[in-house]
């Protein structure tokens, strides 16, 4: 069973490394995003507690990297189903939760690696980083990667086409990112937005990331949910998403035989 989880994890990482365009774009794309936003908004918008928008947007970019990696990596579940690879996995003597775990761990690993690469740009963005804060941030990164991979896996498992998945991405996952405090803080936003941001579990993951870099009591973490709450919700998010991912895989339906 563990060899099956290992095989699925290994396959995910290997497929990524073999695809050079994916390696390049996954590092390049968030960097370009970050540089464009930081450059464009540097004069017009700088939230409190940071020196530049680039600094504010830095933890948000990590969330974005993780979300995008999770999406593009779990979308392969749909390909696997279409191309028949999944059938081969479903007839193996592997408990179905192990299938979910292997795929989610593989995706999480990729998302974590991408996030970690981006840590190197922290000094350029003006984000204080040292061994301690890097380790703390990495912990949050890992949780966030696991939760979003599990979410992506769940959605992909339920979808019949990658076009459908793109739809879900635009109406559900993108707003989730936009409302997470990655791009702008809750305090300047419309009260309705404030409510939506409070519901968004990603808000707490992004907040936890800010706490990891700046610690509690810093001006930039003012107005955020408390550090304890942020961490608890992020852990809970990961657990609930994994439970959901397992639950959808456990349902044996005629669809598996398509």
């Amino acid at each position: 069973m563990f060899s099956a989880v290992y095989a699925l994890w290994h396959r995910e990482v290997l497929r990524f490394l073999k695809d050079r365009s994916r390696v390049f774009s996954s590092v390049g794309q968030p960097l370009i995003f970050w540089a464009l936003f930081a450059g464009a908004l540097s004069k017009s918008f700088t939230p409190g507690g940071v020196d530049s928008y680039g600094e504010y947007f830095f933890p948000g970019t990590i969330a974005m990297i993780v979300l995008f990696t999770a999406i593009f990596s779990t979308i392969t579940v749909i390909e696997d189903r279409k191309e028949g690879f999944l059938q081969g996995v479903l007839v193996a003597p592997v408990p179905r939760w192990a299938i979910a775990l292997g795929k989610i761990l593989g995706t999480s690993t990729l998302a974590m690696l991408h996030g970690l690469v981006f840590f190197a740009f922290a000094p350029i963005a003006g984000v204080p980083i040292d061994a301690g804060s890097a380790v703390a941030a990495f912990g949050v990164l890992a949780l966030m990667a696991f939760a979003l991979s599990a979410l992506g896996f769940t959605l992909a498992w339920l979808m019949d086409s990658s076009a459908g998945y793109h739809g879900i991405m635009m109406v559900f996952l993108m707003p989730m990112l936009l409302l997470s405090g990655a791009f702008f803080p809750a305090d300047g936003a419309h009260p309705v937005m404030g409510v939506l941001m409070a519901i968004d579990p990603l808000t707490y993951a992004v907040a936890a990331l800010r706490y990891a870099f700046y610690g509690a009591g810093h001006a930039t973490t003012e107005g955020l949910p408390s550090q304890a709450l942020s961490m608890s919700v992020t852990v809970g998010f990961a657990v609930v998403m994994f439970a959901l991912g397992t639950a959808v895989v456990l349902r044996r339906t005629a669809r598996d035989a398509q």
Partner: protein
Amino acid sequence: MTESAVHAKGVAFSYGDREALRGIDFEVERGSVHGFLGPNGSGKSTLFKLLATILPLSRGTMKVLGLDLATQAALLREKLGVVFQSPALDKKLSIRRNLVYGGQMFGLGGAALQKRVDEMLEYADLSDRQNDVVSDLSGGLRRRVELAKGMLHEPELLLLDEPSTGLDPGARDDLWTFLRQRENVTVLFTTHLMDEAEHAARLTILHEGAIVGEGTPAELKQSIGGEVLEITAPSPDTLAADLSKAHGVDARVVDKLVRIESSDAHGLVAPLMQSHGDHVDRVTISRPSLADVFLSRTGRRLSEDA
């Protein structure tokens, strides 16, 4: 432990309102090569998916390798090798990598797995191409990789869904040569091709979710009386009726041809031409094929391109 590899009783399955299998009973002997012949929609693919544990068995009982399919599917999977019609391979990865993952799915690992992969590569004559990416392979080679993967964990029962589909005649022969070298494994396959069905030691013919024939291919062909006489005629219905009356034979019209199954079709030709020669355009005599068996049991042609 039972003698048979598969023992099925009253197996039925419906997709919503559509009944795919209507309560079938059959046995598959251990160590045999058993085929299920039928056109698309006959229920053979549904049967395959039930046996492969992809579809849940809800009606009827099936004992497979002594295990209850409904309740012991997880245990059973360890003993099954499943080869799908569309290969369950990762096309972006190499042959060897696919086999390694396949073995790991069945709990193999370490040196034992590498050794087993080497053996199967050798067996499937793929050793020198083991690092080729699957997407670069021909359909025949892919099927061979798939077979090697399905047999890595030394299954007791090998399930094959339409094993020859998409293969050219040469690759089909290779496939069956490969399968015949098998080691102590029961092979159960589905097909809609009568040529392929000939490879079975025993055959079960399915039509619209029910079994319409069972036996060795030779027995089945014998069951329709030695020879088949087909007559092309301007008005086949009248001719069939006249012939039945005049010669006491069972003449039927199938696809606008008058058809007589008889142990002595040869002897029938002369008197037939004497009495009704004016109404006959052409007469052909042939040994019955499995397609004739299907036709005789169902009144329909087994469409080869289905």
